[in-house]
């Protein structure tokens, strides 16, 4: 008798719980992010931004789609900063959790295979941070929030021409690093097509090199107005002081690989006053970006890095895509298709990392931010450069 009562009670509770759950349908979005492994801080930043966004939407009673409000549900899946785990995490989100869309992975190393899985299974995916063209190339279901690697070349060319009034440029790049080679080539063609003047020196080095004096001597002899160095921060920390020792007094410019606090630690004062292009700058931000940064600082006690801001924008894009879908379908398959079409229909978007337009590959055409390394060794927003 007692047991029957217990069963009845449990059944009653289950039904009571089930009724509101079916009544207020939720929209499930999966996050494929690195919570452990090489870059756990990236996963944490992404999750922090997502939790903040979720609280905003659900605190306001849900997301308005087609005249009805729906609660959002975020499911975080750890990809361990590994390529194979990113594929597994994507499959788990798609098959077990039946999410209607995925945000992440962040790094290109995981986003390229993870994007393949999402595309094959016809699930819309947005990678916040990946800059490798292959993530979205020929994948109609995959989108991204960050600009592509090669885009920074023209950005640097435009900025240097305007800011320094530069007529001649020199490039020093790492011939063993695809990222560096690609950027150097794009920069060179961008600079030359502007017709301002020639690239007077185009020198290369190896990844493990410590002495750059021969290359720098050639560059300095060509007397450029500035030197573009799309290399990793640890190499930059050797290149700039060596160039100063060789008597170079002009400007340097870099790319987003410079954007780590370690650059300032390794390079010291010699890097102050130089500029580099990147996704976003926390210091000196204005408007909506500043609001986002201040709220994030209040909540988590640290400045949001570029991946946190880009995750925020990715969720914004996803919400826009869902709104464009117009209605919420209970079948995940139909809903996924509707969201994809909704995302593809987005022509422009204003986010905390700037406003962007989308091309047919699902890649944003957005402004990059040029950051100055201040005299105190902090990264300060200088201006945004648009394509």
């Amino acid at each position, binding site marked *: 008798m007692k047991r029957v009562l217990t069963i009845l009670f449990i059944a009653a509770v289950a039904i009571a719980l089930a009724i509101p759950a079916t009544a207020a349908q939720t929209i499930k979005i999966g996050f494929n992010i690195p919570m452990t492994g090489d870059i756990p801080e990236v996963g944490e930043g992404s999750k922090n931004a997502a939790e903040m966004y979720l609280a905003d939407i659900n605190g306001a009673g849900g997301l308005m789609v087609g005249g009805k409000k729906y609660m959002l549900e975020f499911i975080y899946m750890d990809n361990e900063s590994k390529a194979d785990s990113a594929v597994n995490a994507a499959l788990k989100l798609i098959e077990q959790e039946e999410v209607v869309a995925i945000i992440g992975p962040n790094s290109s190393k995981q986003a390229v295979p993870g994007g393949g899985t999402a595309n094959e299974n016809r699930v819309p995916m947005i990678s916040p941070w990946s800059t490798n063209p292959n993530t979205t190339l020929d994948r109609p279901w995959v989108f991204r929030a960050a600009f592509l690697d090669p885009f920074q070349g023209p950005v640097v060319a435009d900025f240097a021409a305007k800011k320094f009034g530069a007529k001649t440029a020199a490039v020093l790049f790492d*011939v063993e690093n695809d990222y560096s080679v690609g950027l150097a080539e794009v920069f060179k063609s961008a600079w030359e097509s502007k017709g301002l003047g020639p690239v007077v020196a185009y*020198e*290369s*080095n*190896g990844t*493990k*090199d*410590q*002495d750059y*004096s*021969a*290359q720098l*001597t*050639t560059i300095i*002899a060509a007397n450029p107005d500035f030197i573009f160095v799309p290399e990793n921060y*640890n190499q930059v*920390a*050797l290149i700039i*002081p060596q160039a*100063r*020792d*060789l*008597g170079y007094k002009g400007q340097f410019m870099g790319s987003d690989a410079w954007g780590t606090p*370690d650059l300032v*630690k*390794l*390079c*010291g004062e010699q890097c102050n006053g130089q500029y580099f292009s990147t996704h976003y700058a926390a210091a000196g931000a204005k408007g909506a970006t500043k609001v986002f940064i201040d709220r994030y600082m209040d909540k988590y006690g640290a400045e949001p890095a570029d991946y946190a801001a880009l995750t925020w924008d990715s969720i914004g894009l996803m919400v826009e895509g869902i709104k464009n879908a117009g209605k919420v379908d209970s079948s995940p398959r139909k809903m996924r298709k509707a969201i994809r079409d909704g995302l593809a229909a987005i022509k422009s978007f204003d986010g905390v990392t700037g406003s962007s337009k989308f091309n047919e590959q699902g890649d944003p055409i957005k402004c990059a931010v040029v950051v100055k390394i201040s005299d105190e060794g902090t990264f300060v927003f200088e201006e945004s450069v648009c394509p």
Partner: protein
Amino acid sequence: MDFIIQNVLNAMQWGSFYALIALGYTLVYGVLRLINFAHGDIFMVGAYISFFVATFLIGPIAGVSPTLAFIITVPLTMALTSMVGVTLERIAYRPLRRKGAHRLYVVITALMAGLVLEYSNLALLGASRLKFPELLEKQIWRFGGVTLTNLKVMVIVAAIVVFLFLQWVVTRTRVGMAMRAISYDKFAIPLMGIPIDRIIVVTFVLGSGFAGLAGMLFAMSYPVLEPFMGMLIGWKAFIAAVVGGIGDIKGAFVGGFLLGFIEVGVVMVFPSSYRDLFAFTILLLILWVKPSGLFGIPQSTKI
């Protein structure tokens, strides 16, 4: 013209490091007929030791002025690094020598010891790079289009002084005579009352001490330290020592500068991807013509 003179100076600085490391290889080889493949990593350890000594001295506890810190760091780094070298000889090479192991096994042990040094550094300090503090105020001198820093001059002078000192030790002192004697006949020499172990320790003290000096000067010139910084430069310096004629002090010195000049010369004219290709093709050609190296003497194996 300025361009060429500047590159000659660049090559002199870069070659100095090869020469300083090659001298250590050649010294140990000359006495023990042992290629001490851990030498590049002893150089790395030297750089890290100088980093810790220097940061401690200019830090809040000691509070010494940077220039004084430099003056103290040089001998201290050399002493501590030579202790690392001697310890390595004690625990890795001497036991094998006692058991009469073939030289091949000792060389493999040296390779392993080098890896142990690299990875224990990685385990202890992590992969993040360190920044060497600026000890000497940098002075840049200009002569027309040519620039020279006080550090560059110091590196080149140090390489020359170390070379002259080692040349003097080996050819003009009693210890040097004993070294040459051991190299000549390892079995008969102990019978003459020469303490072979003590001479070997002296060899390691000299070789590792100057590797420590090279590490410190390197860290001052290229102030980003990482655990694998000694690997590539150590191998290249070894090749430089072989081209110069391994076992010969003069050969190591000339070989080191030769490699420095070839590398900088190639980069001056061609893209840097050709650097190692050209450099080692040239060195190969030299060995082709003179297999024992520029200053080496052909030897028959003694049994």
